[in-house]
């Protein structure tokens, strides 16, 4: 659920509810439901596991929610292209949860290479609907780079099978039209994806740089010289402080025996909550203090493959970074991240319980505009929120920035206003720099009003696609500004 909805709930506003929920088990059953809805003019909202943070699965106009979680079979795992290139092709139903898919593939010695933070509570259909990205995207790419073909049910109930084109668009591949449309042009029911043999081993490293700009340049050089670490995550000053604190705490001596017998006093809880309030209410001051006293940043690397080859790549990276006064922190920061990589999202509700709010903003741009994107968004939001950021999902031509914003006003109604204000400012800055407003969370409801500016003339094209395929506007209505 998106943070905005949690704030609405706290302010006493009731959520949107559907009239009915269906759990189909096959593409044919989905087709039957959609055909009926098309005839009866009933809105349809496709639903996976509900991990989306942009509100793409909220049934704004009620109607029927089509929950695909019963469509959870892996149908085949075969050698790709007659095993000529050693890769695999996986065919699965779209309701399968990401972790189940990955575990079943790994049991066969295969990996999809797609590890989003939401892997425990997101489905394959959700991945495809909003062009998701995993934590290993620098090596394996985003889901749109992995998908080879899709089977889908169009808004009129017709099925487009593998290898077929959408009748209205015979010269384009169905996957190119449907992937990323968040259920607004149809429901993707099955997909065929590229998969890889499991890597032999992974070498983890944490590299410390004296300045963010140095680390940022090193990251760009590593990728542009042809090296492909599977994991590449650069944390800014505040995020580095929290990361280092986490792995130092884990490696610290266990608490003295007498501490275990201390009662869990209510005072302790109250003090913790008060500390958070002070932290979030003085975000700007704290931000500058962090940056002044802890300016060092950490880059986490994960290199997959044959151990001597991974070592050689690491050596090349250290050689490249030598001029930037890099310090090798060993494997611990990387291993710490690996152990806790899915736990961050589960800490977010705690912030809401402390009468504050938190959300994440993922934007991306080419390398030349990335420093200004980072600075401008921070400058715009800093007076009202504590901002953490990391640079992950790096490519040869650019990178994504993942901002985490924490704030509080003390009143639920003002929290809602501030939340909207922060999003508006962040999106406006991103658009002004020429960056994209979403790298992998999608548009949904949250960013819908900014999509026309993002796509410019492309929006007309997208609207014409919608009009052509869904003239009654029944598929996930009210989303993506369509």
């Amino acid at each position, binding site marked *: 659920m998106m943070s905005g909805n949690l704030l609405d709930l706290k302010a006493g506003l009731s959520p949107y509810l559907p009239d009915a929920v269906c759990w189909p088990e096959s593409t044919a059953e989905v087709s039957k439901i959609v055909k009926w809805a098309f005839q009866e003019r009933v809105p349809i909202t496709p639903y996976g596991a509900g991990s989306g943070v942009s509100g793409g699965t909220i049934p704004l106009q009620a109607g029927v929610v089509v929950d695909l979680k019963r469509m959870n079979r892996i149908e085949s795992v075969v050698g790709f292209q007659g095993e000529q290139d050693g890769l695999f092709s996986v065919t699965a139903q779209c309701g399968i949860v990401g972790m189940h898919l990955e575990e079943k593939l790994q049991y066969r010695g295969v990996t999809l290479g797609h590890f989003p933070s939401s892997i425990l509570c997101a489905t394959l259909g959700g991945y495809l609907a909003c062009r998701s990205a995993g934590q290993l995207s620098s090596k394996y790419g985003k889901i749109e780079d992995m998908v080879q073909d899709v089977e889908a049910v169009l808004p009129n109930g017709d099925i487009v099978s593998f290898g077929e084109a959408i009748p209205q668009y015979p010269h384009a591949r169905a996957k*190119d039209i449907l992937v990323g449309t968040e259920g607004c042009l149809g429901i993707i029911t099955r997909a065929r994806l590229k998969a890889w043999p499991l890597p032999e081993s992974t070498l983890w490293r944490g590299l410390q740089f004296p300045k963010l700009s140095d680390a940022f340049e090193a990251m760009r050089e590593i990728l*542009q010289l042809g*090296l492909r670490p599977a994991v590449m995550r650069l944390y800014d000053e505040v995020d580095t402080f929290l990361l280092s604190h986490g792995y130092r705490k884990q490696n610290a001596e266990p608490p003295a025996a007498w501490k275990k017998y201390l009662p869990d006093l209510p005072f302790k809880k109250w003090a913790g909550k008060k500390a958070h309030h002070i932290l979030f209410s003085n975000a700007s001051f704290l931000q500058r203090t962090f940056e002044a006293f802890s300016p060092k940043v950490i880059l986490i690397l994960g290199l997959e493959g044959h151990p001597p*080859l991974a070592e050689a790549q690491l050596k090349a990276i250290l050689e490249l970074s030598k001029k930037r006064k890099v310090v090798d922190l060993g494997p611990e920061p990387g291993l710490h991240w690996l152990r806790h990589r899915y736990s961050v999202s589960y800490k977010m509700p705690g912030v809401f319980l402390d009468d504050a709010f938190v959300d994440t903003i993922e934007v991306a741009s080419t390398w030349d505009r990335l420093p200004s994107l980072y600075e401008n968004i921070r400058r715009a939001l800093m007076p009202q929120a504590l901002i953490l950021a990391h640079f992950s999902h790096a490519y040869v031509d*650019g*990178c994504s920035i993942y901002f985490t914003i924490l704030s509080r006003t003390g009143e639920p109604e003002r929290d809602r206003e501030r939340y909207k204000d922060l999003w508006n400012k962040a999106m406006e800055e991103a658009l002004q720099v020429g960056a994209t407003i979403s790298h*992998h969370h999608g548009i949904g409801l949250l960013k819908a009003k900014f999509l026309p500016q993002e796509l410019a003339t492309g929006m007309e094209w997208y609207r014409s696609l919608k009009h052509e395929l869904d003239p009654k506007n029944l598929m996930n209505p009210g989303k993506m500004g369509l």
Partner: protein
Amino acid sequence: MSASLFYMIDKKSLLVTVSTHVKLGELRRRLQQQNYDIGFFAGKSAEHCTLKHLLEEGLPNLWHLRYGEIQDLCTSLVAATPLGHVRTKKVPRAATGPDLKKIFMGSRRHYGDIEEATLQIIPKPDCRKTVVVRAGKDFLKRLWAGGVRPLTLLRRSGALAIELEGLKDVVLAEEKTLKALAARESDARPRRSNVRARSFPRSRPSQKERS
């Protein structure tokens, strides 16, 4: 090549923006003058094709294992459509609806005439090497599991020619890895003499056994 077809090289993001009327060979020559190249090669005859032809027909890239297909190398484009000019955003990846550029590419001008493209470029590689190994059925799986990123693979009567490129030290390490993987595979393979010495149950009984 006339300067009007060649708009700009962004050396920071390794991107080149060109008119699609430019021929691939000319673009490559122009880039090589500045120590860059394009990660696309579709045979010598394709060097005479215009970029428009490559994008609209979606010619396969012989270097796709390392650099991806032409669709992956194209970061953004401008297409003339019946609804006006569509200019896709110059960003590495996005999640803002369907990837419109992929709809235009490979559609043979049915949905839009591609006029301008921004493509990823690569720095001229430090080193290029071809390694030949004897490779069995599972060798390629081991190659990917070993983290090798080949430029091309060519199989010829039990041998595999693997072209590598990149930083010199990394290419040398990749070569060593390939040799180690090939040696591991030949150790794992049962020897012929041993196979003959052991008696395996046959799927069909021989004439003698049947009688």
